[in-house]
């Protein structure tokens, strides 16, 4: 089949470009430890409130100095709606929904994950700055969707709880 010279060069350049892009993205995983959510547990959405750890949403400090933050999503609020953590804290978020699909985005961090009834979403995040980070529901979940916001208060070590 006839492929003209310039077209062949062009297609080679595109292939090289794609190769570089793939390489850069592999580096975000291997060097920068960016990660996507992957399957953990399943849970019956109607029994969430009586299933550990979702029977007691909130913050727990783990033995290794990290924090586990358990959050229940429901239309149209996060439970708990406010979480306070010390600056530099690494938090393992465990989130599920009791009703419809929700989504969580914390701007200025890599937290971006769907919260789907029947599935447990796990995300690890380190908060680098002492400030308030918004927790935003970014999937339409009914008429009050835009009211579904929460806050991570990240505070200096002295004033931590």
């Amino acid at each position, binding site marked *: *089949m*006839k*492929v*003209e010279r310039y*077209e062949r060069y*062009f*297609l080679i350049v*595109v*292939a090289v470009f*794609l190769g570089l*892009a*793939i390489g850069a*993205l592999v580096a*975000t*995983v291997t060097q920068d430890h*960016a*990660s*996507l*959510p*992957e*399957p*953990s547990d*399943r849970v*019956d*959405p*109607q029994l969430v409130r009586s299933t550990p750890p979702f029977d007691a949403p909130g913050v727990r400090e783990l033995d290794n100095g990290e924090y586990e933050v358990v959050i229940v999503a429901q239309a149209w609020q996060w439970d708990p709606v406010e979480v306070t953590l010390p600056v530099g804290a690494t938090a393992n978020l465990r989130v599920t929904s009791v*009703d*419809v*699909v929700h*989504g969580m*985005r*914390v*701007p*200025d961090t*890599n937290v*971006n*994950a*769907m*919260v*789907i*009834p*029947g*599935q447990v979403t*796990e995300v690890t995040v380190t908060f680098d700055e002492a400030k*308030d980070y*918004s927790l*935003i*529901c*970014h*999937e*339409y*979940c*009914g*008429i*009050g*969707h*835009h*009211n*579904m*916001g929460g806050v991570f208060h990240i505070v200096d070590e002295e004033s931590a709880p």
Partner: protein
Amino acid sequence: MTLLEDPPASPSEPEPEPESEPVKSATGWRVDIPDVTAADMRPVKWQLYLSFIGLGLGILMGLLQAFERNGQNLYDEAPVLQTYYQGLTLHGVALALVFTFCFANALMPLLTMRGLQRPMASRAIANTGLYLAWIGTGLAAWAILANKATVLFTFYAPLQATPAFYVGAVFLVVSTWMTTLNMLLTLRQWRRDQPRGTRIPLVAFACLVSMLMWVLASTGIAAEVLYWLLPWSLGWRDMVDPQFTRILFWFTGHPIVYFWLLPIYVSWYCLLPSQVGGKLYSDGLTRLAFISFLVLLPVGVHHQFTDPGIPLSSKTLQWLLTFGIFYPSMITAFSVFAALEQGGKKRGGKGWFGWIFKLPWHDPSVNAQLLAGLAFMLGGASGLINASYTVNLVVHNTSFIVGHFHLTVGTAVALSIMGISYWLVPYLTGKRLFAPGLAVAQAWIWWIGVMIFARGQMWGGVDGVPRRTQLRDAAYYADHPGWHWPTLMTAIGGMIMFIGGVCFFVVLFGTIFSKRVVTERQEIPITDVEHGPKESWRVLDSLGTWVTIAVVLSILVYGEVIAHYWPINSVSPGFRLW
């Protein structure tokens, strides 16, 4: 001269068309497709008009959304509508399903008829497709306007719409299946009349591959709706699995964007070069580009990088396959640019860039499609960002995505459809295009609008603005002062787009209701090819081979997803939270 008046038939009650002889006239379809009659053209025309109704409704809703971004909630005053999200559902359904599907239902059979030089094989199938499209649109529109289906056009379970909504969506999809079936039957008739081994004319080939791609792609949503969501909405099934139905949705939900785009690709490859006085370079690479979209169906998981229920193996595999799609897109960029450059140089353009200015920008159809292509370069580049595995974490479900697809489907596709309409409506009606100057201005207004709009959406998205959210009333809006300017840009850009849209409808109605008829010979502009089918591989024409490869690849790739996901986790009853 006099033109035969097309009967103003209502789509639900077609007038019995006498088995008439082909009408002889000097213009339009009457001269460039042998043996066609007004009855063959009626489904084309009424699918096109339904498509415009979808566009009109969508644009109207877009205006309300632009006002919302400016802090003015007009939903309380608007008739019928109650909420932002109801309007947003209508916006999505009218544009993503009705506008695009019905346009494909109109253009693809028409170009197939032109390519194969014969009418569609079955008028009954064409008319069935037409009725299904109108009835389906009617059902879905009723469900949405009655506020019984405020589930957005993605209708993620367990939000549960009224059954009429799902039935309407099914009818719209089945109407596209009818179109495809009819095109295949027409191809079979054509093959019988040709010597063995005759190459399928390029334009008909491109249309057929596009429709076959979509039929395979739509099986995901068909299974989701027919087996799970519709019975569940009717009360015959108690529970569905929200994660699994999302997997099925996105099996279709990615290639649906190819289905929006491919009719435009057909125009860019097979018509636009002739409209600018150039030639398409390679028949073979064109066929290969269309086949790539058919084969690279199973990439939907790249819309679900952040879903908890899908393993990293599936996400990685489909990420790489998605990058493969970039290849046919770049082939397209090269081929279309080469054809345009050739056309511009024939018109006296000199040097590296001089040909650009010699292109017929004064031709409304060319102008709109050139601007559409310009937007598509940015749209395609931002698509690569969305598909980029970990980088997707920055933009997933933010307004960045909205900016992206208003450059692609919202401009590359929509503005091209407007441009195509500028020859298609005169071609079908025999009426002269009304106010060509306004038609040129219209495309510029839309384009300038979308540049501002998309810049605002993308800027906001990177800073965390969520998509599909009544933003100005959001609990957290005030906590993000940085969102103010991007949101305002979105509002202003959207309003400018609306003005561009209104101008399109002025031209459209002006043309349809014009008294001035076309007198000169008028044909579908089909391009010549520099390196014709004789130089391209024969196997490219073997539709069965490529469909088989696409099916096998889809089964393997999605088999991997489902094998990891199994068993299905049906835990969710329906919710109506609006």
